[in-house]
């Protein structure tokens, strides 16, 4: 199985605030929020399915959920066109 991680934009529209908060909390463990209901996540195929499963437990049929896969070119261009600080290049480490 391919273990490479791919970038996804995860967007959702959840009609009830309690469910919204639960979903928000779940996704925060997978990636960083870009906007109110928009995340960027780098996921392996396993993580993608895991996240979809965890969200499915929370969502109701009336809610919407979208995964937009991005290739590395898309990601680079997105980063280029952003305002600073929205989505930056990730380095392999962080020193605090």
């Amino acid at each position, binding site marked *: *199985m*391919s*273990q*490479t*991680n791919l970038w996804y934009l995860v967007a959702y529209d959840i009609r009830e605030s309690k469910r919204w908060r639960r979903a928000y*909390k*779940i996704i*925060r*463990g*997978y*990636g*960083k929020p870009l906007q109110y209901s928009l995340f960027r*996540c*780098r996921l*392996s*195929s*396993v*993580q*993608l*399915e*895991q996240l*979809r*499963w965890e969200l*499915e*437990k929370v969502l109701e*049929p009336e809610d919407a959920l979208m995964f937009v896969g991005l290739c590395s070119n898309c990601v680079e261009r997105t980063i280029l066109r952003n305002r600073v600080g929205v989505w930056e290049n*990730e*380095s*392999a*480490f*962080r*020193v*605090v």
Partner: protein
Amino acid sequence: MAAYSAGTSNNNAAPLLRVQSLHALLYCERLFYLEEVENVRLADAAVYAGRRLHVELAREEEGDWHALDLKSEKLGLIGRVDCLRRRNGSLIPYEHKRGRAARIRTTNPPKGSKNSDEACAWPSDRLQVGAYAMLVEEATGQTIVEGRVRYHQDNVTVRVPIDPALRADVIQSISRARSLADCVERPPVTENERLCVKCSLAPACLPEEARAISRLSSESIHKPLQRSVGLKTQQIDQPSADQKAGTGKESSLATSHVPRLFPADDHRQALHVVTPGARVGRAGDEIEIFAPEQPKERHPVREIGQVVLHGFAQITTQALRLCADKEVAVHWITQGGGYIGSFSSGAGAVQKRIRQYEALRTPEFRLQLVRRLAEAKILSQLRFVLRASRNTDRETIGISQTIDGIRKLMPALQRANSVDAIRGLEGRAGALYFKALPTFIDSAIDERMKPEGRTRRPPRDRFNALIGFAYALLLKDVMSAILTVGLDPAFGFYHRPRSQAHPLALDLIELFRVAMVDLPIVASLNRRQWDPDDDFVVAGFQVWLSDLGRRKMIELYEKRKTDRWKHPVLRYSLTYARLIELEARLLEKEWTGEPGLFARMRLR
């Protein structure tokens, strides 16, 4: 970690077999063995996709749907039936699958039907339903005549008659599983390479590497090693010549088109906490860092591969739990740059450890490993000496002597017949190497940055302070790799148990010292990256890194980890970060029936 499931309830008999494991057995016997006997379990995308399906199903059936746990001592099975329904008075177990049904060509398609393919269950699904049916039978006392599999992707339900042939298949599979479980030898990799591409265990099983070993005859595996011993200067000097020399047989490995199964890099970040007084905590599934006078930071736990706590940084129990749960390693390093220890949830499979003890207690085997390790280390040192002195007059600066001195040790290394003898040779090579090191540093660099020999702890000069700290950083990564692979770090083959560091980690680290520490540090000195005043703290005879210096060294080291390196035998490239884990896995292969690839690491 939770390797001992409910299946081990019966103390006297063999543990019960999970019905799902029959699925694995039919897919690949090695997969079954790795999962059920060695307890190597990696999450599989299909598992989560299956769970999602179940959430959807439960919603559709409005709470009317529940799975049933069953076990049978008689069959030796345990399993969870997706759903049990009563149709015309008889019980029918249902199994839900996400994918498509298998198709068989029907010889006489019904009139007017365009579709000449008839849906049927895949063999492994048939087997599974058969096993569930037999479990239900035993639990209820009713005879089950039929099971059903629902394939959601093409929306069909397939009937599976529970006939004597299927029952016999189930019984036979169980006994095959039992005999494999009693076997100490791991079954060979499957011949059907396509199966490996979809197999979740590929990064731990390393099928490509195992095939590489069997494809190369043992002769050609050992030849490159022998040959490099007596290498001429020019040959070592030009990596391309070295590469070309081996292409004859090895290139055949590169021609297969199966995608790389061992990931080439690790996307997860290393999080170093160096600010004094900083605290690492948890908020939901995020790692939270509070550092004095800095804004609070939050990181999704799945984006973090390791947390390194330097000096007096704190971590909460909640954060540690989260790390254990999500397989994030935690390491502690002292303010002075010494390695303290690691925390990792790793796979604690006892089978693996027993094999490791047995293998490493065999003197002949151990000697062979030690020889290879020492050879890898000395050759890396030699290559670095050659590389660093490429544009100099080796005669006048005395490097020719170093080179000759190290080369002369190589035949002795091949002949040495005790670990102590090899230790002695390695020590002599090391002494020659460290004596030559200062000459690699640009003569115009501040004198204070040059080493005066190798001093361990405490470091006596700036160069040794850098090297010492970088070794500690390397040690944490080697420890992580050992724990991830599930080996016992306390049981090594070369180093004697002495300091607080684990012998096996000290053994493995030898492969990487030159390429991951010595070379980048010398290069950074020559790029004038260090400030002898601001980056260091001098206390009497001891020299430590300042806060600033520590940050710089972490950056230098972590960046080096992302450099790619091409394996000379496997002929694919991967980052140094991943290479460490690969070497730990190849080491284990030395005693699990696929030897020959460990310690091929050489500096380019």
